[in-house]
């Protein structure tokens, strides 16, 4: 391979990296599990706990008492924001591959939505369980 071709290939790879942030639902879960294990030795992820979390009535926000208030209960179809009417793309990555593909985006939305619905930031354990439930059921 010539130096020029190599450069092109490297540039292409760098470009792809921008499009796909390189994260997958499972790699994100693994990251959060590692974080949770640091404070809770022996932590194992649970889709079932994630489901309870998703449906839990937090009693913090009148309009957004639960995650599913906006995201709906069918994860394969669009949700609708109860305040703004904004259409929210499906949560399930099998129908919306963009979902859980960038840790930056995932962190941004956990930060916003956890504070709004739960009244506090979510723990790494909760984040792991949440993504586990959305992608593998609970």
């Amino acid at each position, binding site marked *: 391979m010539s130096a020029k071709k190599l450069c092109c290939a490297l540039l292409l790879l760098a470009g792809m990296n921008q499009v796909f942030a390189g994260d997958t639902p499972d790699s994100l879960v693994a990251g959060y599990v590692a974080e949770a294990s640091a404070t809770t030795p022996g932590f194992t992820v649970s889709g079932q706990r994630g489901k309870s979390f998703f449906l839990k009535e937090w009693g913090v926000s009148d*309009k957004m008492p639960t995650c599913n208030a906006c995201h709906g209960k069918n994860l394969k179809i669009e949700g609708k*924001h109860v*305040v*703004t*009417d*904004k259409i929210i793309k499906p949560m399930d990555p099998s129908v919306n591959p963009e979902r859980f593909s960038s840790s930056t985006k995932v962190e*941004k939305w956990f*930060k*916003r*939505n956890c*504070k*709004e619905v739960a009244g506090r930031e979510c723990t790494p354990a909760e984040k792991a369980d949440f993504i586990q439930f959305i992608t593998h059921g609970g």
Partner: protein
Amino acid sequence: MNFLVALMLMVGCELAQAEVTIPPEPTNKKWKEECASCHMAFPPKFMSAKAWQRLMLGLEHHFGTNAALDPDDNKEILDFLQSNATEGTEFFALNHRISGTRYFKNNHSKVPNEAWTIELVKSRANCTACHIAAEKGNWKPVLDDSFFTGHLKY
């Protein structure tokens, strides 16, 4: 003679077209990405630097939702908004809304109150309901007063 008239018309058209050419609006990738993920990325020119600062300081409570950004992104977007803002008290609103500015109110004084809540419009934040090409920088409204009057009869 006919040829001359045609030529003059053509030149006239060219000139007319040149007159309505819209200069490109200032843009910023992060501004577009973050703001437009929930609503139209409202152009910086519709508020003053001070108004944008107040708005961007309160993103955790952004008209009923949490739109918090990380500090670096917040700064980059605020810088962009402020450097392209329009100064003057008519571009400032205490309620943080573009629709609260005198500039907005003066330019929408003929829109009947009921028009803002019909299904097609929903809210004053939904610019593109009437200004269909707004996102391309063309703010000419396609729905004029007569449309609203006709529509609201039903």
